[in-house]
């Protein structure tokens, strides 16, 4: 058995990173994500890894990409305002296909908002925050143990698909403490980026002829190549306007789209015979679970769909669900964001009700139950 600890969600995230082999953290403090940094500030120097507090979030994101390119598994953690600032460089990592993990511990409000309150209102930004078309993987754990394991998974997906992965959870799960078990090394699978095996003279960093994820050489290992945020050819050098841009950008999206089956993860709870489904993640997913239990206790056939991967969105699963329930209830700590996606996939085949709350408190099970009853 692994190590048992009582940890905050943020600390579990740091532990998950270490378990996954993260040796590089670049950050800038911001509530409510700071504990991720503080934990790693203590741990990384102990294991010879790099802890860097940069001058701002833009620099933090840049340093993380640099660290990854030099061969480290690299992490950054932030919240709303910092997440907005990181967007430009996140797009750089997406286009240049440099793995890294970005944690967004979501707080309340736009702008400075409510720094110490929880939110789930950056969830559309996780997908659309940077300009241009870009692939996005975003995970949404809800329990401290899950934050640990999803952080490991985030690094694995990032390395496997050569793309940044976002982990988004709310302040409540980030700050609360729960018991977690940190498995012994070797228990969870760890994925490392595929490196080129060809001679350096033949290396094409963005060669798409052998699959959508070309092997990635680290800097300073003999493969001298060029990395640029301009659209580029298979050799990494800029191309200005050509079919290559189109096919290459398509490939980037395809890395995610074609692997939905592997990337998309969710929990279904009492959904088999459900007449009303709740679609909820993060702390709202936790409340929803209690609401399902309360509903069942009253004889109402409710069930929960709790996505652990929110991007790519579980289109098919939601479409299927919408075809067999009377309605879907979507509780969110926002004024309605992910419900747009549910609406898109449901295609009008069932009722849809949102529960929105942005006053600093979580949506409670009673609120959800009431809405479930309305829909039923």
């Amino acid at each position, binding site marked *: 058995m692994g190590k048992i600890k009582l940890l905050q969600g943020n600390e579990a995230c740091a532990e998950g990173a270490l378990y996954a082999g993260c040796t590089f953290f*670049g950050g800038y403090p911001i509530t409510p994500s700071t504990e991720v940094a503080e934990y790693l500030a203590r741990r990384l120097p102990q294991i010879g890894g790099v802890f*860097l507090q940069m001058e701002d979030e833009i620099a933090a994101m840049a340093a993380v990409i640099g660290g990854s390119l*030099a061969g480290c598994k690299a992490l950054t953690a932030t919240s709303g305002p910092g997440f907005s600032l990181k967007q430009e460089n996140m797009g750089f990592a997406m286009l240049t296909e440099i793995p890294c993990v970005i944690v967004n511990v979501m707080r309340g409000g736009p702008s400075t908002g409510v720094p110490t309150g929880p939110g789930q209102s950056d969830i559309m930004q996780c997908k659309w925050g940077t300009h241009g078309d870009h692939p996005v993987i975003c995970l949404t754990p809800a329990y401290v143990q899950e934050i640990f394991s999803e952080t490991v998974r985030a690094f694995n997906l990032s390395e496997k698909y050569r793309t940044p992965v976002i982990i988004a959870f709310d302040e409540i799960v980030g700050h609360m403490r729960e018991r977690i078990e940190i498995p012994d090394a070797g228990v969870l699978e760890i994925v490392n980026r595929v490196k080129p095996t060809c001679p350096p003279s033949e290396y094409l960093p963005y060669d798409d002829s052998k699959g959508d994820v070309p092997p990635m050489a680290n800097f300073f290992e003999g493969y001298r190549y060029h990395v640029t945020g301009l659209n580029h050819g298979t050799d990494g050098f800029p191309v200005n306007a050509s079919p290559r841009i189109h096919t290459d950008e398509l490939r980037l999206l395809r890395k995610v789209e074609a692997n939905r089956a592997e990337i998309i993860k969710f929990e279904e709870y009492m959904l088999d015979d459900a007449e009303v489904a709740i679609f909820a993640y993060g702390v709202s997913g936790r409340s929803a679970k209690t609401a399902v239990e309360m509903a069942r206790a009253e004889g109402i056939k409710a069930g929960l769909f709790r996505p652990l991967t929110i991007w790519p969105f579980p289109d098919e699963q939601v479409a299927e669900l919408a075809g067999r329930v009377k309605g879907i209830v979507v509780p969110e700590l926002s004024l309605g964001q992910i419900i747009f996606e549910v609406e898109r996939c449901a295609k009008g085949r069932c009722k849809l009700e949102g529960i929105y709350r942005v006053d600093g408190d979580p949506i409670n099970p009673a609120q959800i139950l009431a809405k479930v009853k309305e829909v039923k």
Partner: protein
Amino acid sequence: MAFDYDQYIRAGKLPHIWCPGCTYGIVFKSILRVVDTLKLNRDDIAMVSGIGCASRLPGYVDFNTLHTAHGRALPFATGLKMAKPDKHVLVVSGDGDATAIGGNHFIHACRRNIDITVLVFNNFIYGMTGGQYSPTTPSGHLATTMPYGNIDTSFNIPELAKGAGASFVARGTAYHAAGLDKLIIEAMQHKGLSVVEIINACPTTHGRRNKFKSPTDMLLWMKDTYIPAVAFDKLPPEKTAGKFPMGVLFKKEGLPEYCENYYGLVERLKKQREGRA
């Protein structure tokens, strides 16, 4: 035999993208000579840039090269260097890239004294975007966004670097190309952050608009305007008006270098653990 630049230039990348008479090519050559003089292994060098004409340089050199976002070269470079502290990291950046949008990273890299060499290609203008004024455009000069003559005050890049804590600050020019080799060599040999401001000419978006008849005129202006610091310091004030010193302007050795500090800590913790075990 003539110096063999080709060994450091990526196959098929010449002619480069820069305009006729753009002096970036002169500095490019200087850098390659320096790498050769210092006998650096190409695999062990990373060249990092932001966005701008100057920032196109990494595309040509046969090192590990990274062309990042506008202004952000230094934090990317910091990531590379911290991950691999025994490698050489060279940042090339324009005046806009380094001191306008990238100003914060510039001063923090200076403060942190991390062992990176930063070459700031100062052509007094935003070349890539077509000639808007930059934080170094001289007072009164015309630029597309200063159509009535620049009313803004310029940065003195060496002063800025020094104020931010840089331990090595130098200035060279494209005209004084041979001297530039020496400055870059000294900068790269310096332990800690080194800044070399390199005066350049952008005939296309700056010179043409400001009464320089040709690229050569711009080079000759450099010849007249930049004076070795030792000589400059001896001149009476009336003779320094409109002139600037060049050479190593500031150097302080033995200051703590960031990677050394960090990996020193790592070692200390390791020893502590071993001591405890």
